[in-house]
């Protein structure tokens, strides 16, 4: 019985690819494990292995063909003694195995093609953080983070990067791509899998006068290092009466990824924001990622820098400037509006901006504020916005209980109670560990639909 070999997906989000090269020809005998083709996506060239054994009866797609749909038949495999003209197409189906051969980040969700430049960027945008007339370029969040590290490492020899797979592997999510080559292995340090140990070593190195950047492959693994972050990094300045502290950045992806289950998908923003002695930044756009990371590296305090895997591949405007920084404790108004204030940060901004767009279509003008940093928080900007709109919705991906939104609600109640025309609503992720099943995962996450309905409820429509 003939077997169809199908175009494989290289990640759950891949829809099509280029059949770059056939490594076999019709009539060749293949066995399980033989590489039969190379396939390109926008980021990677993958080698493919045959799973079943047999004779290549027919190549159905010529090499060089672009936009071959996932699951389209690309070749026919015949079993012993079978002839290609006897092939009955509707038979057993097999997919060649994707075996990546060139660099692409290891983690599946980040292989999603980079989304085109955010269309929300072109809507009302209050004050970009750069002078008018500054040239801008399109850059992904991933590249912006890398550039921030390159610039700070170039200007300050005490800055170094350490973490799992940051060097030779170029970063599990490729944020540190090219850094080993540029700075060498004295300053780009691959660690064993020992988060508690290397976080502690980095805090000690900071006491000793260096400015470490510690990459956690994801913040889920920072849980292993929690004691050194909270008890050593955050408190030593205070305990030493101001004599010594740790100028250190702990950075890496935080929050939900795609389909990776409960232990690999959670937002720790509210956890870290609770700790006096830590600063916490959580950028949304590429320019903020760059400007805030540069500020974080220069800060004399320990900074928790929460990135997001889903945002790494997204492109935004980034100013072309010698030294572009974004200050801590200064929120940014992305969109002005009179009807309601939507406060968010990190990937929550995506839902906030999407919701604002939908609301605008209904004639509701939302003011959307990006906090940038959760410690310190720019309360003044929020309060004056709420005093104008009299209504507020907060948006975040984390758990609902003791969330950032809960805290903001309390501050707004204290400082702007008389201005409120409705209770503040907090949109959050659900109060459950992250499920794996596709339908449940969708349900667990905060969405723009949820934000729209929260806004409608605070404006009583």
């Amino acid at each position: 019985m003939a077997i169809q070999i199908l175009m494989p997906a290289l990640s759950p989000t891949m829809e099509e690819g280029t059949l770059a090269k056939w490594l076999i020809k019709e009539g060749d005998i293949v066995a399980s494990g033989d590489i039969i083709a190379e396939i390109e996506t926008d980021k990677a060239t993958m080698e493919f292995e045959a799973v079943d054994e047999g004779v290549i009866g027919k190549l159905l797609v010529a090499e060089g063909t672009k936009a071959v749909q996932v699951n389209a038949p690309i070749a026919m495999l015949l079993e012993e003694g079978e002839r290609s003209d006897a092939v009955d197409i509707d038979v057993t189906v097999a997919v060649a195995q994707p075996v990546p051969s060139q660099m692409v980040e290891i983690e599946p969700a980040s292989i999603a093609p980079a989304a085109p430049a955010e269309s929300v960027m072109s809507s009302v945008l209050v004050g970009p953080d750069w002078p008018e007339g500054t040239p801008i370029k399109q850059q992904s969040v991933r590249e912006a983070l890398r550039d921030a590290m390159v610039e700070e490492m170039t200007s300050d020899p005490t800055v170094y990067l350490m973490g799992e797979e940051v060097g030779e592997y170029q970063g599990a999510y490729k944020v540190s791509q090219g850094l080993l080559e540029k700075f060498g292995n004295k300053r780009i340090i691959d660690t064993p899998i020992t988060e508690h140990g290397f976080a502690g070593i980095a805090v000690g190195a900071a006491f000793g006068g260096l400015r470490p950047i510690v990459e956690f492959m994801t913040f889920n693994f920072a849980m292993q290092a929690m004691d050194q972050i909270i008890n050593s990094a955050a408190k030593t300045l205070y305990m030493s009466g101001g004599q010594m502290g740790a100028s250190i950045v702990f950075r890496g992806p935080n929050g939900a990824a795609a389909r990776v289950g409960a232990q690999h998908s959670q937002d720790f923003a509210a956890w870290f924001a609770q700790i006096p002695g830590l600063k916490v930044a959580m950028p949304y756009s590429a320019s903020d990622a760059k400007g805030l990371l540069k500020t974080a590296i220069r800060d004399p305090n320990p900074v928790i820098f929460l990135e997001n895997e889903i945002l790494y591949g997204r492109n935004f405007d980034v100013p072309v400037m010698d030294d572009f920084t974004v200050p801590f404790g200064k929120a940014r108004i992305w969109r002005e509006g009179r009807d309601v204030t939507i406060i968010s940060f990190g990937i929550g901004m995506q839902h906030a901006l999407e919701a604002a767009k939908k609301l605008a279509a209904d004639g509701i003008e939302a003011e959307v504020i990006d906090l940038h940093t959760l410690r310190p928080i720019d309360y003044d900007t929020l309060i004056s916005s709420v005093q104008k709109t009299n209504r507020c919705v907060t948006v975040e991906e984390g758990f609902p209980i003791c969330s950032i939104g809960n805290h903001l609600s309390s501050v707004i109640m204290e400082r702007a109670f008389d201005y409120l025309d409705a209770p503040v609503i907090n949109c959050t992720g659900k109060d459950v560990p992250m499920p794996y099943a596709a339908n449940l995962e969708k349900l667990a996450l905060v969405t723009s639909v949820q934000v729209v309905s929260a806004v409608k409820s605070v404006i009583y429509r």
Partner: protein
Amino acid sequence: MAVRKSTSKPNISANELLNYYKDMLMIRRFEEKAGQLYGMGLIGGFCHLYIGQEAVVVGLEAAAEEGDKRITSYRDHGHMLAAGMNPDGVMAELTGRVGGYSKGKGGSMHMFSKEKHFYGGHGIVAAQVPLGAGLAFADKYQENGRVTFTYFGDGAANQGQVYETFNMAALWELPVIFVIENNQYAMGTSQQRSTSSPDIYTRGAAFGIPGEAVDGMDVLAVKGAGDRAVKHCRSGKGPYILEVKTYRYRGHSMSDPAKYRTREEVQKMREERDAIEHVRSLLLTGKHASEDDLKAIDKEAKAIVNASVDFAKESPEPDLDELWTDIYA
């Protein structure tokens, strides 16, 4: 306390050998199919295949008795099949369906079976090591004569909690077998780049835990070492370390570019050291099975795997209410 490289092998019957062959082949066929389903978008997120390492778990399961426990990392499909869990339930968990071992809520990295004494399926590197010792603590407490197989990787062996656990396990003489599956890489980091002293089996010495290095591409060597470890633990002498030298053929997870090693290195292992091929040639040269017998075994394994795929596709997604269940007992 002995720390040594093991050589001796057990005496086993032709029938047992045939069973090892079946079990290893079953795991390989299952994993190949899981790779295919990932390619078709039916499995999402992370998916870590066990191809190449089959002899480790099959050899050790052969040394286990009914009621013994096992716990491992995210690279867990092979362990579940070897523990006797149903391929249908494992495959359906991979596709996130209600027929899966965790009703679709756990996924590839997080499956469990109380019935088969399989305690997961853990995503945080080395977190399963103290958990495994804890299972052994409970067994000792209950004086039930059981032992726990606690599996972890060469990368995991660098986590501090491993050594905290070694100390307590030795101090309290817990019936736990620490199985280090040394496949030479932790994601893209070779053991030699992450480890100051490569002989992991000697690392229990400071705590008085005996250790052996075992050829993990030879199921008989694994079974023999497993027998010694089980005997030691069950007799109340405390923990035992097996460093099983093995190799993973595929990338760390489905989308790993695997640029940190050469294609030739992988090919050489496959061609010269493959554990399944090894048993196959033992069976053929010993005339314990014919080519046709082995073909039939392969056909049967494929049929079981294909049936599990049908099940995993037909099983519905979990009910939406499942989002809110199982958070509290």
